[in-house]
């Protein structure tokens, strides 16, 4: 009977495809989670390239502050008159680089891609809870991207108050050219972006809680899903707060209210705004801003958990500890925002509280790091490109995380605040670590997304150039920061104490350029493999999770027949007594009698009795 059901159901889904799919509904306004994931990924990659080019531009300025590059004028026109980037434009470059990387690449590009791809696949759902809202989420994101790039084409230039857009600089259009129309566009773009993230996040949470297949209880979910789920919760609770902050900022900018503004004199003109508090903005901003860095890094942690376990051919070490660490990070992320504001004249007692909560985050982070290392320990490691990036992610997470202990300490932060030490810290721990998590995911799930394999050799080239490049770029910045060099400064030759760092800047810039060129290997690999890559098999990495039980060819509804039922957790790798070194989640215990352990049955006495009988009949002795 079940076979009949399968064929009928398959026919239903196929006919669905034939009747409704046109070019527009399949590739453009698609409501299919797989296509939306690809849209998010490709848009994210384009934004990453754009933001990377911006960073190369300001790196050139930092390395050679007194040199002219006439070619820059050819491309940038009045923003680089005489071949040298203007100070205002320099600030725009760092602002938009930060905004795009944090929000468009590492939030939408990372969560958007992999939550969309993997939540339905790994949970055994036909699609997201609300496919239509999912589509809207992408198109809001896309519009936000277009508007942000569009801000480069307005006369006064893009926003330039930093990605944190602190007022009063961002709130007073006459303060700096970037605070004019560019800032307005930034705010419009970000509002659309937040709408996109909230719609996406609501969908992810709802799908995880409601659409799991039979047998998939919460403790059988892969760590990827746990991380996407918790990330979405963080986003849902924090992004709306940014909306409030932005709404007040919009009224201050355009209508003359005084939420954030007070006692300002700009270019000899006394501004009418009285009584506002710029610190209020910082509180509202960082109430989102700090959870945001966990929105960025948690999906990367989830992705690497999965990839490291699969490619070590070992169960993830401490599955429950991994989940509880993620939960711990989720909760703590909301009560640490004050550590961004130690130098705002905060009450030292309050500063002490924020310091303690901040330092506590080291505990779950360290648990995760040790669990990664313990998973790798004596594993049968397969160094696929995805695995290389996963290990790289762990490396960055540790080396960047350690400096978090310095910055989280209020007494030290007063010295290090707004220096290159901060730049080094967050570029390693949330920038590089998350990018590596994302790239790791791209290499690992590429066969699932495009049905073809990426070239491994180019993958290794890409990995080493990026890995070494990132360390060469960000590691020296720690020393500049300890020496007191402030971030966002335009020219190192204007201040005698900074001049000695110009030579280091030259090294950093060359490293950045080489690492950027390394991305060409990735882009080439990514886009040509879509058409010419080796055809993928159904389960190329011998992985346990449900997405690898779907056919290589994408179909509407993911599974041609019934959705598989889940019987076990996703990390049964190299289980003693098993025939293969992996047992997919949909394999029932009745088919793996030779490898079952008593604890697999979760106290089901009848199952344990049958197993013990089988053990006796087959002379199997179970250790432990």
């Amino acid at each position, binding site marked *: 009977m079940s076979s009949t059901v399968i064929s*009928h159901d398959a026919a239903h889904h196929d006919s669905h495809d034939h009747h409704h799919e046109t070019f527009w509904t399949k590739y453009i306004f698609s409501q299919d989670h797989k296509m939306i994931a690809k849209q998010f990924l490709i848009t994210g990659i384009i934004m990453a390239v754009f933001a990377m080019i911006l960073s190369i531009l300001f790196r050139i300025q930092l390395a050679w502050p007194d040199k002219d590059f006439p070619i820059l004028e050819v491309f940038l026109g009045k923003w680089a008159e005489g071949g040298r980037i203007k100070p205002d434009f320099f600030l725009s470059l760092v602002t938009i680089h930060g905004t795009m990387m944090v929000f468009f690449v590492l939030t939408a590009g990372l969560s958007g891609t992999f939550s969309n791809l993997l939540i339905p696949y790994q949970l055994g759902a036909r699609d997201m*809870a609300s496919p239509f809202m999912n589509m809207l989420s992408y198109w809001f994101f896309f519009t936000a991207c277009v508007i942000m790039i569009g801000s480069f084409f307005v006369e006064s230039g893009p926003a330039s108050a930093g990605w944190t857009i602190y007022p009063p600089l961002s709130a007073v259009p006459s303060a700096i050219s970037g605070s004019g129309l560019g800032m307005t566009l930034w705010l419009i773009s970000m509002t659309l972006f937040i709408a996109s993230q909230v719609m996406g996040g609501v969908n992810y*949470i709802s799908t995880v809680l409601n659409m799991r297949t039979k047998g998939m209880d919460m403790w059988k979910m892969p760590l990827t899903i746990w991380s996407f789920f918790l990330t979405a919760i963080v986003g849902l609770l924090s992004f709306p707060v940014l909306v409030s902050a932005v709404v007040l900022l919009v009224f201050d900018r355009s209508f003359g209210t005084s939420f954030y503004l007070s006692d300002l004199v700009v270019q000899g003109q006394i501004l009418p705004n009285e009584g506002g508090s710029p610190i209020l903005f910082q509180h509202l901003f960082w109430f989102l801003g700090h959870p945001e860095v966990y929105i960025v890094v948690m999906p990367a942690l989830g992705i690497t958990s999965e990839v490291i376990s699969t490619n070590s051919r070992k169960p993830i070490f401490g599955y429950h500890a991994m989940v509880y660490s993620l939960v711990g990070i989720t909760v703590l992320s909301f009560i640490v925002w004050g550590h961004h504001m130690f130098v705002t004249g905060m009450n030292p007692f309050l500063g002490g509280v924020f310091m303690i909560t901040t330092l506590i985050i080291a505990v779950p982070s360290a648990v995760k790091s040790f669990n990664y290392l313990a998973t790798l320990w004596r594993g049968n490691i397969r160094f696929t490109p995805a695995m290389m990036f996963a290990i790289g992610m762990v490396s960055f997470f540790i080396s960047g995380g350690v400096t978090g202990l310095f910055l989280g300490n209020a007494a030290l932060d007063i010295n290090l605040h707004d220096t290159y030490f901060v730049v080094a810290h967050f570029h390693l721990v949330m920038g590089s670590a998350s990018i590596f998590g994302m790239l790791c995911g791209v290499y690992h799930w590429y066969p699932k997304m495009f049905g073809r394999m990426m070239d491994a050799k180019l993958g290794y080239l890409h990995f080493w150039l990026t890995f070494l490049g990132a360390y060469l770029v960000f590691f020296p910045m720690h020393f500049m920061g300890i020496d007191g060099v402030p971030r966002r400064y335009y020219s190192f030759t204007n201040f005698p104490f900074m001049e000695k760092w110009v030579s280091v800047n030259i090294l950093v810039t060359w490293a950045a350029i080489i690492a950027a060129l390394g991305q060409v290997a990735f882009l080439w690999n990514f886009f040509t493999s879509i058409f010419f890559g080796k055809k993928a098999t159904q389960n190329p990495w011998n992985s346990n999770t449900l997405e690898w039980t779907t056919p290589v060819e994408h179909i509407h509804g993911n599974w041609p027949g019934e959705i598989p039922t889940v019987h076990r957790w996703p990390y049964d790798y190299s289980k003693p007594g098993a025939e293969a070194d992996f047992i997919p989640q949909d394999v029932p215990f009745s088919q793996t009698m030779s490898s079952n352990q008593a604890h697999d049955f979760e106290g089901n006495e009848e199952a344990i009795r049958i197993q013990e009988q089988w053990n006796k009949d087959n002379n199997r002795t179970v250790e432990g």
Partner: protein
Amino acid sequence: MIMSIENLQQEEILQSRKAKKFSLWLGMIGMFMMFAALSSGFIVYTASGVDKGIKTILPHAFIWSTVAIVLSSLTMHLASKAVKQNQLAKQKIYLLLTIALGVVFFFVQVEAWSTLTSRGIYFINTNASQSFIYIFTGMHLAHIIAGLIVLIRCFIGAAKPIPLDQNTFRMDLAAIFWHFLDLLWIYIYVFLLLNQ
């Protein structure tokens, strides 16, 4: 055999509806967070000086708008009850009443603004606690507009009419959202009253 396939699809539809309803609850949590942020912003700002704070009696119009929106919640409840008993005509009448009361609420709120401005309490104000009144009510009205669109969509669904189970489901979601907007207003009003 056919039955089992239909059951299967029916099960998936039910699952997806449950998920959509859940999404609505999540969305409302998001919206509430926005107002929670404004509330904490208001508290922090108001505490920053003795010259801050609402420093006026809230317009009486707010009482009338509260009455209007509570009544609209009641009519909305009756409308969704009607659809459950398959009384489409009744559903349409109650829906229209709800929409009308929503519109009344909207205009009474605007009327309250003009009361405030007549007392010299403008949106552009060096005491931003007073600007916050406009922000709270304005942001809430933006949500009311969204709510009215949802109600109109329900009405169109009922007038067409769309299949009953779909109509019921749509009404169910709309009712939850509309009641949320009602409670949200009561929260805002009480919050402002406690701070006046």
